[in-house]
């Protein structure tokens, strides 16, 4: 358990470095690593160290201890990601508004991730050298991007589809609201107030539709291999989702204004 934090920090450092585009990330780790066979068998080292303690990532100790440490941490990392993927599956299945097509696509991607991570764990557990285990373990992050890519993608698709449903529902009731305003026996001032709110809601609705309509197509096929280059797409989609949300909220308030002004 004492080695948990060092590995965490070590891999975090690697990932951040990679995200920043530092091409030297892997060589740095490799250089800092002590291969179980490198020091004792190096031809330039006629007198191998009697104590081949080293460090790979955040794991330190003898080669066998490092290997065991990496395997343990990798198993935990994979398990945590599998838990996150299961939660995403639940979120998708619980959404009443996600389209069947988007649901199918996302569930397929999640299933592929789960299968891949299960296989990756088997690979890491079968590795016989710390260096190989470390190399394989890094793909837990780089090969799946469960937290940075998959999770935001899933939630943004649910958001966009839910916003689309809200937009359709509001659109469907707008004609009735306009008729209510037109036929209302409320005072002229109240009718004018209702009409102003109605017009604003119409504008907000159109803006929300414009903001949310492209979100799914932008994000649903983003791949871990494209990260971090595709991260700005996620950020942009999040902004569009928030914009649509604000506009729908304003439209919702407008509907309250209409009802209040007309007394309906």
């Amino acid at each position: 358990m004492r080695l948990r934090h060092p590995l965490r920090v070590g891999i975090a450092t690697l990932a951040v470095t990679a995200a920043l585009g530092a091409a030297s990330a892997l060589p740095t780790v490799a250089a800092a690593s002590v291969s179980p066979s490198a020091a004792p068998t190096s031809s330039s080292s006629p007198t191998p160290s009697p104590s081949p303690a080293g460090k790979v990532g955040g794991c330190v100790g003898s080669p066998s201890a490092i290997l065991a440490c990496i395997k343990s941490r990798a198993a935990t990392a994979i398990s945590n990601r599998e838990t996150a993927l299961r939660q995403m599956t639940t979120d998708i299945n619980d959404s009443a508004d996600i389209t069947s097509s988007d649901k199918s696509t996302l569930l397929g991607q999640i299933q592929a991730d789960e299968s891949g991570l299960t296989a990756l764990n088997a690979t890491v557990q079968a590795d016989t050298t710390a260096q190989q285990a470390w190399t394989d373990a890094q793909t837990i992050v780089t090969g799946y991007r469960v937290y940075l890519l998959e999770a935001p993608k899933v939630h943004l698709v649910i958001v966009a589809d839910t916003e689309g449903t809200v937009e359709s529902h509001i659109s469907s009731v707008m004609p009735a609201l306009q008729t209510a305003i037109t036929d209302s026996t409320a005072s002229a001032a109240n009718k004018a107030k209702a009409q102003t709110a109605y017009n604003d809601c119409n504008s907000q609705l159109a803006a929300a539709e414009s903001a949310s309509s492209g979100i799914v197509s932008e994000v649903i096929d983003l791949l871990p291999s494209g990260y971090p280059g595709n991260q700005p797409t996620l950020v942009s989609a999040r902004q569009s989702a928030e914009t649509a949300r604000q506009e729908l909220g304003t439209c919702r308030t407008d509907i309250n204004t209409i009802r209040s002004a007309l007394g309906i």
Partner: protein
Amino acid sequence: MRRLGRLGTAALAGPAVLLIAACGHSSLAPASPATAGAAQTAAAGATTVPSALTATAGSTTGSAGVSSDQLNQFDNQIDNQINQIDNQIGQANQGLATSEGDPTR
């Protein structure tokens, strides 16, 4: 394709609303306006077709033939969905703020 289902729903619902409106009453029957924070009657996550679009007028009817009860139900459904949107945006934000260099999360 994704939008066609919604547009189709709207296309069907729109005429229904207009039909109801055309048959509506000419005078308003005052009723309590809905509030955004009204208690939600629909189950979380459930999507129901707003009865305002398909049902006949209730006991309290507006000039468009849509009862306040129906509008309340519509409002509650929209509020419920907006709450879901807020929740999902919050979760997306968590992911975008995460550092995935930590494999022990």
